[in-house]
């Protein structure tokens, strides 16, 4: 009876019978969700909702104002499941009726992307368990609306844009919103607005990223001296539970932005993982565009770029190689702007070194392109007068990237005869003997390590001046930029965010795991345990299963190896190294076998 009487009541002109008005008021009251309901009320509520769904055409925006208010203010997280389904059905019908309700309906749904927050900024546990169900219903409703009103996604896009969480919002809300948002990135809706949604997410990631400061990361316990602060805390070791790693991570935990970024990276990675092949390719293309437009040009972004790393790892053959080629094309393309090119070359170098899933022949192909470019550049230069060094920034950066990659990869390339011969045919001699003198300008640590490995491999003849070999930093090198010099940017340095680390770690190549060309000579396992101050300790001979970390000791070589990573206090420590006699005795560090709770 109720069902039939309601439609007639809803159709309300100005003057109506008092009985009807009373009924109407009662209905509006029941629909007010701010009051708790008992069982009967709940059933009545559902009935009202269903009846209203049938009568949507008669709802008028001015007369039924309070009714509409009550409907749009509902927080569906608090509703029972059946009620929620009925309510969402009502909303979708309202949206289809006429344009006037569309915006409110969409806004109401988007408002419900975030769960209610109670006490101490936490999401209540019951909300967490219902999350998936609620999200799927919300996305389902949005999709139904977009099916019925095909132009709705445009409006939805604007609404999401406005409702997007900001930098300082609550972490749980942020993560919940993004998770639900990415749930829309499927099928038709994904085709229409997927790119925009991804772009917004990446913007948010980038914003969080640049707000994490290095001081937060390096903030250690104060009783430790500067040298006890292990540089390779930044270059994580095999044993993920090593003290240094946990210590760093604990300190990162104090930084709210880092936590939020961590949570969001988990959400994004999960989303990427859930995509099927076809969708993944589409997303990859979109991500490349977004990357090029924003991430590539961010000065020293720390972790956000790892979404590209993770995406590529999902399909190494196509995506992994594709990304490398994409970056190389930016480097060699004359029309690109200089900042993008410099940044791209840093990315190439770091990417090829650190991505385990990239095959050796891809590496050699890319190296060939880069070396060819360098040689062309040299040829071009030979025809002109000598110009000051900063103008050759890109050239030096490229040489450095090539050397950096070879430090990591030379040994594995040598294992393939055809690749080895390709590599040996590259005109390194010409490059390094050129009057531009890349060896003197590039980072000494990289140059030294490269020369050492290359000599062992026989790649580079011993033409290099021995005195130059041990140069810590030549004047040329130092004038080349200063502290914020671009070529010290290694984008894919070890990942430091705790939760999302598990997505990156399996594919990441740590320096301590790299086999170098000279590691065959002194392959002595006993060395790892004793005499940790020995100068010529072989970093490269570590096997993966070695628990005890011996990176702590070797002086210049190891020390300079740590410069393979981003070291913000680089210049400071550098200074120290130069002042002391070239020998730092790092205290021995044995990792405790149990890591402190993080």
């Amino acid at each position, binding site marked *: 009876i109720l069902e039939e009487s309601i439609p007639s009541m809803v159709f309300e002109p100005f003057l109506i019978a008092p009985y009807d008005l009373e009924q109407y008021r009662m209905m509006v009251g029941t629909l007010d969700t701010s009051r708790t309901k008992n069982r009967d009320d709940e059933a009545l509520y559902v009935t009202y909702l269903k009846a209203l*769904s049938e009568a949507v055409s008669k709802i008028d925006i001015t007369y039924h104002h309070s009714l509409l208010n009550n409907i749009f203010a509902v927080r569906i997280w608090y509703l029972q499941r059946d009620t929620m389904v009925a309510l969402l059905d009502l909303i979708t019908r309202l949206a*289809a*009726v006429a*344009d006037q309700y*569309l915006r409110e309906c969409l806004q109401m749904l988007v408002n419900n992307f975030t769960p209610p927050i109670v006490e101490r900024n936490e999401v209540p546990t019951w909300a967490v368990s219902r999350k998936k169900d609620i999200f799927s219903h919300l996305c389902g409703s949005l999709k139904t609306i977009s099916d019925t009103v*095909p132009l709705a996604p445009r*409006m939805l896009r604007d609404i999401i844009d406005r409702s997007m969480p900001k930098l300082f919002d609550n972490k749980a809300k942020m993560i919940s919103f993004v998770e639900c948002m990415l749930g829309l990135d499927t099928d038709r809706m994904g085709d229409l607005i997927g790119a925009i949604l991804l772009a917004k997410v990446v913007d948010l990631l980038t914003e969080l990223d640049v707000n994490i400061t290095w001081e937060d990361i390096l903030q250690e316990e104060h009783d430790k001296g500067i040298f006890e602060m292990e540089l390779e805390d930044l270059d994580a070791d095999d044993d993920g539970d090593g003290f240094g790693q946990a210590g760093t991570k604990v300190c990162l935990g104090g930084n709210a932005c880092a936590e939020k970024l961590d949570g969001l990276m988990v959400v994004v990675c999960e989303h990427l993982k859930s995509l099927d092949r076809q969708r993944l390719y589409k997303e990859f293309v979109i991500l490349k565009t977004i990357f090029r437009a924003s991430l590539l040009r961010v000065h020293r972004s720390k972790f956000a770029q790892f979404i590209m790393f993770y995406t590529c790892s999902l399909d190494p053959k196509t995506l992994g190689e594709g990304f490398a080629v994409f970056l190389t094309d930016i480097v060699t393309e004359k029309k690109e702007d200089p900042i993008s090119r410099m940044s791209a070359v840093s990315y190439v170098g770091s990417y090829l070194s650190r991505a385990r899933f990239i095959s050796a022949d891809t590496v050699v192909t890319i190296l060939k392109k880069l070396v060819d470019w360098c040689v062309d550049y040299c040829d071009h230069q030979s025809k002109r007068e000598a110009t000051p060094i900063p103008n050759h920034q890109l050239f030096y950066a490229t040489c450095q990237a090539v050397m950096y990659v070879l430090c990591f990869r030379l040994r594995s390339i040598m294992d393939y005869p055809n690749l080895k011969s390709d590599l040996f045919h590259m005109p390194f001699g010409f490059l390094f003997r050129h009057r531009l003198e890349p060896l003197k300008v590039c980072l000494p640590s990289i140059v030294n390590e490269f020369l050492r490995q290359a000599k062992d491999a026989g790649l580079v003849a011993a033409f290099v001046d021995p005195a130059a070999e041990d140069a810590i930093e030549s004047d040329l090198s130092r004038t080349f930029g200063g502290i914020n010099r671009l070529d010290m940017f290694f984008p894919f340095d070890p990942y430091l965010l705790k939760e999302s680390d598990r997505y990156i770690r399996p594919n990441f190549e740590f320096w301590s795991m790299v086999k170098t060309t000279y590691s065959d000579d002194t392959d002595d396992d006993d060395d790892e345990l004793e005499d940790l101050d020995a100068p010529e300790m072989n970093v490269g001979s570590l096997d993966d299963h070695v628990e005890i970390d011996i990176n702590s000791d070797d002086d210049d070589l190891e020390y300079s190896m740590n410069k393979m990573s981003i070291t913000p206090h680089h210049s400071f420590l550098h200074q120290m190294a130069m002042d002391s006699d070239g020998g730092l005795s790092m205290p021995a560090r044995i990792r405790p076998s149990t890591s402190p709770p993080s």
Partner: protein
Amino acid sequence: MEALREATAELTVYVHPSNAADVRLAVSRQLSTLLFSYEDRFDGVLLSHEVEFEGDNEDVLDGLVPYFGVPVTANMLLFSPQPEMILEGKVEMLGKESIHAIVLGVFSAAIMADDIPEMFKFKRRGHGGKFISQSDKRHVIKKGSMIRFSVKRVDTEMNCHITGSLMPPHTGCMRWLSVHDAEYASEISSGKRKPRDHTKSEQKVQGRTTANREDSMVNSERPRKSRKRAVGE
């Protein structure tokens, strides 16, 4: 589809100097921002466009904003539904009180209960529900059916939402109409659609030539019918 029409417009598109290398692309992109929105000056929704450039004149606009204006002639396809037009759409959602359809895959149309003839009864059973006509049980409107309806009102504010009506004759499920409605059947078999007389239409009213004598009899009745309707409104 009556509401579709082609129009030619002479426009000046303002292009930022950074796009000077590829003006054609810039103009195309600029016009594309107008796609699928209702434009007052075109009096319709832009569906597609094609540009022709006139000469090489590019005037630099002085002042604070140095965009340059490119005069183009654009051929545009517009969708401008007017009341009384007959449109066709695919039914997407049904309810006791309303039928929701999609026109041209892009525009949403809703037909409310008041505008659905009494003879259609709603049956909830079955996938999504359906409307069955009492007079002919084969006349069924359900999800996925193509229907013809007349336009009652167009809301140009947001997405060009159309409110329609199934009351006028020759409306309903197209499949049924093509078999049972003589006039509609003749219309589609002759291959010509009779354009309506619209005040804002740029089309000329075509002459009524038909191949077959039978049709011509039907056609001769037509002007009377439409006149009647106009009077009756």
